[in-house]
């Protein structure tokens, strides 16, 4: 009797998990969040939460930038270098005593640089029709090299009062970071509803069908890469404000994490599906994993290994689930 119900339960579970890619990130988030909360009961204090969110913010923006390009069926392996470049520009052009006006001006110029870098990739990928991953990998060398020329040694300055204000910012007792995430989600839902947003998914789903139905494929992909560059530049602003300085190599390792966050968030690498909310969940999962590992008493020499292994397992798990389903189909 119990045997039958167990089988029925298993069957139901299989039906429920089929084609629901968002379930895995949600499950991972719940697990990592609970373990994290258990280890750090104060994590929802405004101050602790604010501090954590400030350190997550650059990766959140990079993951959002990456989501745009991946949904579009492309990829940008230069987002980290774009962020490093803009951050290098910001911290070398601003000083500790810069006024708000100067800050805004330099900030706009920085976002312009990011968009220009993105447009460079976009031009190569859409109009010259080069493969995206190798092109952006090559351009990450170029942008990273320029960042090193601009900022040869880690350092630089940000306006002290602004950075200070950013570190203590909270509206209605809710940390600034939460508001930023809410704003990202609102802007994203607006973008998605526009014609550009429709085309973004159409091009990612099938370039050929999109082209056949009159979608300006090349233009859409170009704009998407440019937008991604602009978003990477915003990541640079949050990075520089949080640390008050920068390092020309800081973005190198974050490119991988941006792609991993997007994949963890349920967006397919093949394009045409997914969204920004999942990617933000992906960043939170990654950050919680890192938090948990650093809270345990594992030696700091072992931590990166544990960290990387958990991420690898998380990335591999949809594959295991698919294998599980495929066997079932074969049995039928």
């Amino acid at each position: 009797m119990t045997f039958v119900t167990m089988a029925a339960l298993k069957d139901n579970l299989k039906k429920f998990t089929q084609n629901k890619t968002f379930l895995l990130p949600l499950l991972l988030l719940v697990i990592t969040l609970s373990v994290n909360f258990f280890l750090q009961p104060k994590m929802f204090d405004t101050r602790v939460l604010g501090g954590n969110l400030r350190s997550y913010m650059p990766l959140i923006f990079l993951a959002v930038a990456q989501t745009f390009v991946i949904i579009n069926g492309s990829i940008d392996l230069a987002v980290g270098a774009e962020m490093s470049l803009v951050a290098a520009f910001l911290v070398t052009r601003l000083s500790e005593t810069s006024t708000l006006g100067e800050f805004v001006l330099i900030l706009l110029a920085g976002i312009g640089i990011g968009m220009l870098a993105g447009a460079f990739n976009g031009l190569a990928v859409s109009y010259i029709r080069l493969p995206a991953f190798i092109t952006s990998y090559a351009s990450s060398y170029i942008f990273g090299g320029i960042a090193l020329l601009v900022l040869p040694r880690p350092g630089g300055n940000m306006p002290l009062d602004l950075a200070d204000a950013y570190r203590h910012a909270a509206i209605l007792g809710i940390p600034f970071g939460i508001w930023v995430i809410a704003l990202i989600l609102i802007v994203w839902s607006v973008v998605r509803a526009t014609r550009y947003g429709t085309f973004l998914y159409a091009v990612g789903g099938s370039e050929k069908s999109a082209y056949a139905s009159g979608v300006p494929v090349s233009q859409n992909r170009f704009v998407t890469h440019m937008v991604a560059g602009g978003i990477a530049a915003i990541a640079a602003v949050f990075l520089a404000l949080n640390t008050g300085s920068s390092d020309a190599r800081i973005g190198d390792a974050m490119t991988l994490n941006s792609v991993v966050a997007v994949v963890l968030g349920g967006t397919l690498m093949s394009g045409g599906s997914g969204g920004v909310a999942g990617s933000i969940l992906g960043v939170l999962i990654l950050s919680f994993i890192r938090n948990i590992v650093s809270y345990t008493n594992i030696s700091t020499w072992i931590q990166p290994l544990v960290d990387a292994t958990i991420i690898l397992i998380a990335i591999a798990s949809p594959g295991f689930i698919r294998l599980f389903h495929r066997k079932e189909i074969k049995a039928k």
Partner: protein
Amino acid sequence: MSAMLNIQRKKLSPPLIAFLLAVALFLFSSFFIAGGTGLHGIADRGLNILRISAFLGIIAAGQTLVILSGGEGIDLSVGTTVTLAAMVAGWICNKQDQNIWIALLAGLAVGTIIGFINGIGIAILKIHPLIMTLSISGVTTGVMLAIYQGKVLGGSGPNMTRLISLPIFGGLSGAVIIWILFSILIWVLLTRTRYGKNLFAVGNNRNASRLSGVRVPQTVIIAYTLSGLIAALGGFALLGFTQTVYFTLGGAYLFPSIAAVVIGGTTLSGGEGSYWGTMSGALVLTVVDSILTSIQLSPPARQIILGVILLVVITVYGRQRSLRQ
């Protein structure tokens, strides 16, 4: 564009173009940058270029197999595999000679395991090669830190250093001779074995290969496993050259390994290319690097130039078909 037209008209293959480019750049740098040091000087410089190219040439062989296998195949873990294999080998050798063979086997085993995991993840679990190999390179770095833990890491045995670095035959160092023997092996593998034919078929069209009875997953898994194994061999050779291990030892070879394959005319979509093209690509990159070093360009500027070169090469070879066609 004009370069592309030339290829079609005169039937110059990309590997030959790359080889001629390497020779031309080398002669140019010998006469105009190093200054005329006579025939003897040029020969010396040539041997030196070969000696340095050998490491990149070996490491890039694995990258060639993986890119040939298609499916957006790429191995971004070769850099860390090189370092980890060198680290394990150096650790076992511990600057002595008696354990060299064990060190070699252990290093190769490490690379094979890494490559096999990559292959399983990509061919069975269907993880995108880019993400799989990048994540594995994260894990490999983790293993390196776990082994290292701030200790001093041993080094190559004296015999190993002698074998790799000193001239053995006609001025050719051991590394070059190993590279030549190794390249014959790869050539046989790619053109004279059933596996080689399957690899090209899988890279060209996975569905068609599957329907004609090629075991696609196996072929892909073997390509990644060999890539790991070859990277480890490169790491072992490199250890003999540098004598000590440091963390950035292999990382410096990742970008050039991909660039060498692309310069050699292997298509990034897979199924088309050759190892001799990759060898020529490795020569081009080594000559360019030696030129940039001799005109004393700063590392960031060299990095920018490397990026530009790769972009130019993809623009010449790697353009995809227009949607209109």
